[in-house]
């Protein structure tokens, strides 16, 4: 968790930018998953558990409600992440659909180049003043 300091005491953690990736079985799912992990490693946002939303895990639900921004990344037009979030009551989130970037399921290997393309697009979406 990212922390801020207030005075001499360690202060509360700040509102995070949460990233949900489909992490599906197909190649595009792997790209979305690895891009989300890269974005977390690079400090752009925090990958969070989509399964926790599906399972309505209270801590994950409440944290998501309090997020500064939410980015949903779907690998294919089945839109599983978008649908999952919406069915859980989250309607305000930014969205990245990999097919809009030209990635086609079954024809898009999870190469470093493809992962970088997706993560760069996510950085653009998540940058301050966007959304």
């Amino acid at each position: 968790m990212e922390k801020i300091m207030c005075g001499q005491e360690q202060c509360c953690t700040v509102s995070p930018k949460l990233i949900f990736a489909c992490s599906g079985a197909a190649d595009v799912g792997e790209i979305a998953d690895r891009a989300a992990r890269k974005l977390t490693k690079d400090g752009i946002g925090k990958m969070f558990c989509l399964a926790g939303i599906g399972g309505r895990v209270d801590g994950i639900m409440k944290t998501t409600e309090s997020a500064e921004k939410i980015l949903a990344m779907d690998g294919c037009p089945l839109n599983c992440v978008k649908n999952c979030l919406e069915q859980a009551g989250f309607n305000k989130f930014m969205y990245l659909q990999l097919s809009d970037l030209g990635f086609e399921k079954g024809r898009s290997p999870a190469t470093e180049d493809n992962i970088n393309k997706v993560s760069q697009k996510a950085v653009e979406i998540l940058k301050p003043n966007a959304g």
Partner: protein
Amino acid sequence: MKKIQILGTGCPKCKKLAENAEAAIKDLGIEYSLEKVTEINEIMKFGVMMTPALAIDGLVKSVGKVISPDEIKKMLNDVISSGGCEAAEVEKS
């Protein structure tokens, strides 16, 4: 379980939330233990990424804000009305 847990590393907001929870417990006149969870790894086990947070009987009810005693009382009343308090009495006896 039958307890309120304050999840936070010990900053002023976390302390304020703990005070509000104590006030809520006192006003309602119920027996609930209050536990402060300060270790980040323990906090993250709740699925919480932002503090302060409050959990009642192990379920996270609030994240990232200092809620008032009245809000906490409402949460506790909801738990009591759903049978949480009766279950607590059975466990104690």
